[in-house]
């Protein structure tokens, strides 16, 4: 009879010691991983990570929302290694490999903002609490962006704003967890004013019709300041309720106001309707003070230009991006989007695609989804190859600084998409402003909130 030392307890002890010795480096790395991937809200634990796309799927901006969603789906496809990779190949940062984000497959949930602040907050909250979204992005209104940005700051997730153009988003309402790639009212005015001066002269009197909410106010304030700095005078600024559909009562007083320029600080359906009214009242054929009467639309979008039809011909405005740009990034994005959907992307689609890429890239560089790590990675980040030339996410207010496009309604469109022509690419230096500029004053960026 022989006695064996090979007992079950002995085997376990030996295995544990040997395993521990062999796995020591792994355990060390794993503890780092655990630190980076816990202690924040909705830390992904499985093989996937969930992003929340909060876009207007109903209401007046539903078409823009649909285009944003197309862009998000394309971005997710590219991040997960599908399609032709789009702008991943032109992006100056090369950490994205097409294997998801930090090795986790990207999944997404969608919400409907309805272009209403309360509905947008409710859908964002649902995506954060029920679906475990680690980042919220999207939207087509500054009112919504400010509301959802505030919610994300409180909840402790990152908010990558969609189409929002009010100075307030990265001005008095800026938040540490929020980032805006889109340009703003100040930048539009700074880019547009010199072009208007060159085309229409400095001896002009402007009449403003302004949408009565945060975006309209800041856009009007910006364009009035920029044009007055060139010598223009301002005859009047009339606030128009957002729900206005027939602008004839607001346009009629312009006729004999002494103004020779009408500035329409309107967007979406407001812009389409006010411009249509202005054209119907013969303002474009009118002569005042010995000069041709002119109309200006500071913020343009191709989708809105389509709604206004031939009324936009020859009218100046600004835009964040346009599909006809010929840089490698824009070309790659237009090809990718156009082949998938059959038409070119809008500026809303572009900014949403870019925001998704920038978020993914920041996570990779930070090595974590932790909002504080992402904030650190995005602050002061400079990049290129995403369609706007060299761009910087300014650390102090989380606003992207880049070139701005001045555009004009095309006189002879060659297709249903060919509605705007680029008049000038205004360099970043001309549209940059100090962090403490009075139009952006008030509010604190605060510190990042990881939510747990």
């Amino acid at each position, binding site marked *: 009879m022989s006695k064996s030392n090979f007992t079950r307890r002995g085997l376990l002890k030996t295995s544990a010691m040997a395993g521990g010795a062999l796995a020591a480096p792994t355990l060390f790395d794993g503890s780092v991983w655990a630190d980076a991937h816990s202690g924040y809200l909705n830390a992904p634990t499985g093989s996937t990570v969930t992003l929340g796309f909060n876009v207007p799927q*109903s*209401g*007046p*901006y*539903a*078409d823009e929302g649909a285009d944003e969603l197309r862009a998000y789906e394309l971005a997710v496809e590219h991040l997960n290694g599908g399609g032709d990779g789009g702008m991943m190949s032109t992006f100056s940062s090369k950490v994205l490999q097409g294997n998801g984000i930090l090795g986790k497959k990207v999944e997404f949930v969608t919400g409907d903002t309805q272009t209403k602040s309360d509905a947008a907050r409710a859908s964002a909250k649902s995506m954060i609490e029920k679906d475990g979204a680690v980042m919220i992005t999207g939207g087509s209104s500054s009112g919504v962006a400010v509301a959802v940005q505030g919610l994300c700051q409180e909840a402790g997730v990152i908010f990558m704003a969609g189409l929002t153009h009010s100075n307030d988003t990265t001005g008095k309402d800026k938040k540490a967890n929020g980032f805006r790639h889109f340009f703003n009212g100040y930048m539009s005015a700074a880019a547009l004013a010199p072009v208007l001066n060159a085309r229409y002269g400095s001896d002009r009197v402007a009449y403003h019709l302004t949408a009565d909410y945060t975006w309209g106010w800041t856009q009007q304030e910006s364009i009035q300041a920029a044009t007055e700095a060139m010598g223009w005078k301002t005859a*009047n600024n*009339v606030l128009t*309720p957002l*729900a206005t*559909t*027939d602008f*004839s*009562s*607001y346009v*009629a*007083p312009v*006729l*004999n106001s002494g103004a020779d320029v009408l500035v329409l600080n309107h967007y979406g*359906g407001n812009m*389409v*309707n006010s411009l*249509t*009214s202005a054209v*119907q*009242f*013969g303002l474009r*054929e*009118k*002569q005042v003070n010995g000069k041709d009467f002119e109309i200006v639309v500071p913020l343009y979008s191709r*989708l*809105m230009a*389509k*709604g*206004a*039809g*031939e*009324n936009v011909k020859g009218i100046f405005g600004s835009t964040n991006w346009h*599909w*006809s740009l010929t840089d490698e990034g824009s070309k790659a994005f*237009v*090809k990718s989007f*156009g*082949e998938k959907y059959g*038409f*070119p992307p809008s500026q809303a689609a572009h900014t949403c695609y870019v925001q998704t890429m920038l978020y993914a890239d920041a996570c990779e560089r930070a090595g974590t989804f932790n909002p504080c790590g992402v904030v650190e990675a995005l602050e002061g980040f400079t990049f290129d190859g995403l369609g706007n030339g060299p761009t910087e996410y300014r650390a102090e207010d989380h606003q992207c600084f880049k070139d701005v496009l001045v555009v004009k309604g095309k006189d002879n469109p*060659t*297709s249903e*998409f*060919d509605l705007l022509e680029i008049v000038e690419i205004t360099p970043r230096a001309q549209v940059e402003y100090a962090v403490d500029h009075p139009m952006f004053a008030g509010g604190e960026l605060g510190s990042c909130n990881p939510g747990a």
Partner: protein
Amino acid sequence: MDVIILQLLNGLDKGSAYALIALGLTLIFGTLGVVNFAHGALFMLGAFCAVTLQKILSLSFETVDPTKTDFLGNPAKIKTPYVESWFGPELGSSIIDWSVPLAILFAIPIMIGVGFVMERGLIKHFYKRPHADQILVTFGLAIVIQEVIKQFYGANPIPTPAPDMFKGSFDFGTLLGFDPNVVIYPYWRLVYFFFAALIIAAVFGFLQFTTFGMVVRAGMADRETVGLLGINIDKRFTIMFGIAAAVAGLAGVMYAPINSPNYHMGMDFLVLSFVVVVVGGMGSLPGAVLAGFLLGILESFSSMNEIKQILPGIDQIIIYLVAIIILLVRPRGLMGRKGVMED
């Protein structure tokens, strides 16, 4: 003075739309006793009849032009409308140009049909239900119609221009002794006003001078007695629903060039039109027309800068303010009949 004349014209123009919608609402309420919250949707459907006809007339075939490229750099596809190919470029483009006036003929049978289907298919089941139920079901129907239109046409406004000959403005001021270009008013808005006046006159003429209209008026006054005389008043009321739908639809067709149609445009008018009906007097057709023009003019004047400087925001509340005052002074509205909505 020029501003006052311009706002008066604006008011008449706005009033035309309010009056036409309110007229249809009152016809339905006066005959069937139904508070139809889907009436704004009928106005919107009318506008989309114009959009649809424009799209039908613009249906095109594609030919590849190797000398041009599309946005992806592929050979461009050039679209040529079938009507231009059938009737020649000049006549073809004129037909497309006149799509809005042509849509009047297109919209009448469609809107009458929609009215019949709506009344027979849904609303007749709610005749004996409380007004609250009628409001809920018709409001729900309006949302369904809106969403269907959005599904097919998208959420963005669709430009539906007036014929070229109606573009530009009429120099109204020269007729009144003003300098040229001081009081000008868009041709199409003037067309809209006269069109609305014509439709209103036609509806009144139909009710006043035809046997059918006489029976309907009798039915509106005392449905039971007319029924006891052996007249099938329900059938006539169904026809009136169709006519009311057509009136709303025609108002929408002609409104399409004024503001590019979108799926939500009916809702924008609905609430105001109900205020118009209440101010005019529930069930009173002349009251609806009178109140439509009155409130349209008041709304226009209240949006004058001079008035808003004294009373900021007055343009937003003027209609409701006037409605409250009128209802306090005349609880049945301007021309309301005794007994309507009082049981």
